[in-house]
């Protein structure tokens, strides 16, 4: 189901993006470590100069009975129609637990937009989340559905941002609520011919399928 960037079919050899079978577009200029530990849900875009640290995963099971984590645990999983803009760094969070330092998986949902040069160490980001540029999401923070994070926000470690929040500040504070129309896509979203699918024309927090399509 989830294809990995390693299994890419190089259709467009000359383009900036390598497109996978499930429609993920991964920039050739992105630096991705530990591809085996990264899953992309399909139609997801990884732009140039993005750093994905799939190599920072939980160590293979050390339990004597053999149960536990399989040997290629997922470090970063990203859902469908999500856009990771250029210059972002996605790094699974880590902490000391029972005397050992270990990494925890990072989960990103569908239709998530992460603005350029943001640094993400969140434990989870749910669907329909818009993160503007130059944000910092410190380790283990949790962003629930339908959240808008304004630019240059620093979300402190372990913070939980509830649904429908509008967040800004250093440290981040909930400064308001997103409108009820957030993420609602009536009719055919973004449909409207050439060039109509530009930033600002889609419903805020809505589906990013058209945006993904426009990135070439």
């Amino acid at each position, binding site marked *: 189901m989830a294809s990995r960037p390693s299994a890419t079919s190089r259709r467009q050899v000359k383009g*900036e993006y390598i497109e996978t079978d499930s429609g993920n577009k991964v920039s050739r200029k992105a630096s991705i470590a530990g591809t085996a530990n990264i899953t992309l849900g399909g139609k997801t875009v990884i732009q*140039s100069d993005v750093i994905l640290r799939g190599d920072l995963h939980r160590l293979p099971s050390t339990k004597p009975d053999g149960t536990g984590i399989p040997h290629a645990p997922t470090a970063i999983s990203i859902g469908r129609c999500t856009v990771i803009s250029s210059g972002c760094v996605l790094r699974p969070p880590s902490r000391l637990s029972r*005397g050992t330092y270990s990494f925890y998986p990072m989960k990103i949902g569908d239709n998530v937009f992460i603005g350029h040069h943001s640094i993400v160490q969140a434990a989870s980001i749910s669907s329909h989340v818009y993160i503007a540029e130059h944000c910092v999401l410190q380790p283990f923070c949790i962003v629930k559905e339908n959240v808008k994070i304004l630019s240059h926000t620093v979300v*402190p470690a372990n913070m939980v941002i509830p649904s429908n929040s509008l967040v800004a500040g250093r440290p981040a504070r909930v400064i308001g609520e997103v409108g009820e129309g957030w993420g609602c896509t009536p009719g055919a979203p973004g449909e*409207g011919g050439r*060039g109509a699918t530009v930033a600002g024309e889609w419903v805020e*927090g809505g589906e990013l399928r058209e*945006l993904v399509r426009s990135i070439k």
Partner: protein
Amino acid sequence: MAQPFPYTYYACSCTDDTTTSSKGAFTRARFSANENDDEEDQTFDPRSPRANYSLFPLENLLYCAECQTVRCSRCVTEEIACWFCPSCLFEVPSSMVRSEGNRCTRNCYNCPICTSPMTVNPLDTQDRLVVPDAASVPGGPFYLSCPYCAWSSLDIGIKFERASNITGQLARIKNGGKVVPTLKERERERDRKREKDDKRHFEESTQPSSSSPLGSIDEDTQEAPNSEETFSDLTAFYKNQISISNNTNGSMFNPHDINFGSPSSITRLMSLYGRPGAKPAKKDKPQSMREAYGSTEGFFEVSNSSEDELIERIRTLGWSGTTSIEQRSNQPPHNSSARFLDDIRPIPTLLRTKQSKRCRSCRNILVRPDNKVSSTRYKIKLLALNYIPRVTIRALAPPPPVPSTSTLSNATALRPTFDYDHLQPSKPTHFLLTLRNPLFDPLKVTLATPSYTSGRINHKVTIMCPQFDVGANTDVWDEALNAGTGSKLRNPTSSMSGSSDNGGMQVEAGKIWEKGRNWTSVIVEVIPGRKPISLPGSFGSPAYQEEELDEDDDVLEIPVFVRLEYEVEADKEEKVGGSMGQKTKKEDAFWCVLGVGRVVV
């Protein structure tokens, strides 16, 4: 929270914004279209100070089907559906909110310095960075710490024995680690102190010159009780007073003795307040109602010496040792006077609510969320974007595919991008205005805009085709099936138009630019104005000489009046009979403001 250009705001008509707040701006405003004089006779002015309060993005507007109008946050009434803690996401029953207040009573605290949510950590040095997870809860003392500014409860000398029920534990610890006595303990303490005071009273009265009668108070001034303690002391005192006066009424004392305010009781009170040579208070018991006195009874006197002490403390601790106004206002109410960083307490997290919304005029429910905290669903949600067309504007030159994509990427850098923040004055610039229809009926649209915008810089705006039709929002799949043939471009060369500013493409007045299933695009020509220059000698008044622009005077915003006409089938059920002609005409109209960009001045 500046919205990047281009943007569209919709005006909610709940406030009549047409009172001429800036007459000068309107003098030049004319309608390019003429047929809506009966609808609205005033131009919406996006620069009026009131406009800020009536303009909203479409996503934030609701729609009342009954009133057939948009509803903004100002013209709905809210009802709280449920309370929850934004940090632990637990729902708090409203009965508990009433009794315990609107703060989380679990383990959720915010940093008093920076407001960041705090975490409970074990003090164990080996596991310093560990966040307790259920499986491996280490023993030993715990503390609250802020992951953002590194403030911790240790800074005010507070540790916890357990990682759970922080609220309960915190209520029992004062800053510095002193244990707050429970109510019972306090009561006992009060009794003990009272006895001591009485004894001292007696001693004082026998040697009158030794100290002031307020000696018993001064003893406790080193530690001012907080308002909660004071309150509990006071209530205890008054309860006590009432019970005493009730019990003794008519029992073993003369009735006239208990007569409040009688001369006898006043003399007794006088003796009570420690007049030298008076009889010890003990002998007079029980007294009638009197006022609280002494720290045990919740009476706290502000003396000059304690004020001086405060000032001295401010002097030594300096700016960095005191709290900011914001920090003080964030403190829980009983500690709102925390002057010094040593007095500050972790802030219990404020609860949040989910609300239902009703139309203010007809009381119909417009929004009703699912009551479960975890759910993001709605039982009822009437959104404006499902009822009124979406108006968008963008430059005719193709914008970058992603807002501010990295310049490092060659592919996108090669593509020319339109700079909305630097529009050239006096240069005719073309924008594409698109109307997207969410309704299942085709629309007849009439647009109107003043030919010159209001404000300090007046821009000339012309809608090339102010009257056009927009298709119905029919089945998506119809369109999807013939998606291969593409949208009906009026001019196939428009695909190349991106390379330059509408180069090669003919902009014709009275013709639409592009049309799709449920959308139509028309061209808007904007000639950005120049900063008004004072002509030497032409205007006598000195006020005209200096034209300093204010912030955002260079923003180009176009108010557009959108009038819709459409036909709705009068009754869907009657349609079965075959009378297809039964249609009623409907009209709708609204103002919106298109934020186009900034003009170079």
